[in-house]
């Protein structure tokens, strides 16, 4: 994979938040890693370690204090202007006043797609997340899991090369969550999207991704990158395979190693 040019390349990125007065908070320190086309990368770490901050840096929703983020070989800022990525948050963040069709079409409207093209895309995307019969409903008429699927459809509606997801299933119950993970993998399999997925669930990270980036807290840094070479397509059987548990253990140890180091220093 390393011979390809990376979709995302993060070089010596640090982020310091100015909290007013003399208070500063180093959220991220010296982050370095690359994400390659078709990758499914999970950012994993304890709460407050800067996963969301890192994701928002990639999406140019905030800018780094030092270092550089490149997306598709251009600065993250340019990539955002070129609409290179779709974004999914922990909350579905659908607009209450728009129908499901309207919500999926929102990015397309912003990008001035013609009307018929928009509708066609919206139908296609809703079909992809298996909600085609809910197009005319309003968001409040859908369950949390269904809303989150709409958010995924919306993020993919303009075929971005990169999908950024910040704990998209964090607010869902365990069963819905596992279904959604399957859904996401199937959507990812049908599109050529690269995914960056923030989570603090170890099994979720291992089940979904091709690589897990393990982070430590305060200041957030990358403590390890673990390749997850479980066979695809992944299924319910994957969760019960010994390799799966092996990988979970490996990731957990990586997280723990760091904790021990943190405690002794």
């Amino acid at each position, binding site marked *: 994979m390393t011979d390809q040019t990376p979709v995302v390349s993060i070089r010596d990125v640090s982020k310091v938040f100015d909290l007013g007065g003399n208070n500063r908070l180093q959220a991220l320190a010296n982050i370095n890693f690359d994400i390659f086309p078709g990758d499914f990368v999970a950012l994993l770490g304890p709460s407050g370690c800067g996963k969301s901050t890192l994701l*928002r840096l990639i*999406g140019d*929703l905030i800018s780094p204090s030092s270092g550089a983020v490149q997306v598709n070989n251009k600065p993250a800022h340019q990539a*955002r*202007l*070129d*609409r290179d*990525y*779709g*974004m999914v*948050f922990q*909350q579905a*963040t659908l*607009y*209450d*006043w*728009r129908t499901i069709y309207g919500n999926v079409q*929102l*990015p397309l*409207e*912003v*990008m001035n797609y013609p009307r018929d093209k928009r509708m066609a895309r919206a139908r296609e995307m809703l079909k992809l997340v*298996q*909600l085609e019969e809910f197009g005319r*409903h*309003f968001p*409040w*008429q*859908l*369950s949390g*899991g*269904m809303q989150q699927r709409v958010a995924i459809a919306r993020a993919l509606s*303009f075929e971005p090369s990169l999908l*950024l997801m910040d704990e998209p299933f964090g607010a869902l119950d365990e069963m819905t969550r596992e*279904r959604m993970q*399957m*859904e996401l993998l*199937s959507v990812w399999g049908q599109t050529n999207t690269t995914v960056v997925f923030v989570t603090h669930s170890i099994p979720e990270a291992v089940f979904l991704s091709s690589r897990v980036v393990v982070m430590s807290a305060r200041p957030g840094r990358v403590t390890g990158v673990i390749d997850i070479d479980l066979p695809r397509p992944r299924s319910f059987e994957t969760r019960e395979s010994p390799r799966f548990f092996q990988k979970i253990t490996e990731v957990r140890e990586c997280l723990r190693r760091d904790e021990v180091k943190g405690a002794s220093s």
Partner: protein
Amino acid sequence: MTNVADLTPAVERELLPDRGRPGRLAQRLWRYVPAIALFIMALVVWEVVCDYFKIQTFLLPKPSLIAATFIRELPVISLAGFFTLREAVGGFVLGCTLAIVVALATSRWTIVSEGVMPFAIAVNSTPIVAVAPIMNNWFGITNPVAKMSIVAVIVFFPVMINMVRGLTQVNANSLELMRSCAAGDFTVLVKLRIPNSMPYLFSAFKVSSTLSIIGAVVSEYFGGSRDALGVYISQQAALFHFAEAWAAIIIACIMGIAFYAVLLIIERLVMPWHVSMRAVEN
């Protein structure tokens, strides 16, 4: 792979609104029964008390007398009501339009917001009807524009303050979503801020509808055209014709409710998606 069926539990379909379910209307009417019963009881008590204690008509007329007067005076007071309603609605439209324009300007140029908002909040808490004599002086005592401008000033501030609130209190993720697809300020305004401000705007409209009737009637107490409801009330009261005054107050009350109801209907048409419109099951 999972299939559609087990991803959409039956519960989710149950949540969808069921329009025109039989018995729904009857159920709704049933809810008004206590209010109506209470109203009738109050009228009966009022009537009986007036009879029993022989209360003088100029202190408190009996409901039956007010009703008779209401019917007799209806041609006069309904015309007067219409005259005043025109002032109220005219002032309302004028004030709301200005308020919305200013609110939109504040969202475009922060300097407008910083300059205007402190005054808006200050003026919003002063009794504006108090300037009625001044407006009468400016526009002429019988000129409806005098009353309209008072009403406009009264409704301007709550509408503007609420609209600004609606334009600025936008969910952070919703904004980031816009930013993530590189939307310009104008697009954000049209597709996010303005729709977001609708519930705020309509709650201000509803409060203002009542305020505008009050403003019109009360400012007519300071003098105005002979055709106006406020003038009618104050004149009849001066002549100790209290049944007539009460009859006119009923008209004012009906106008207030009707105005409110019209706004409620418009709200439903404009925001079928809003929380307050969702089917209530209990």
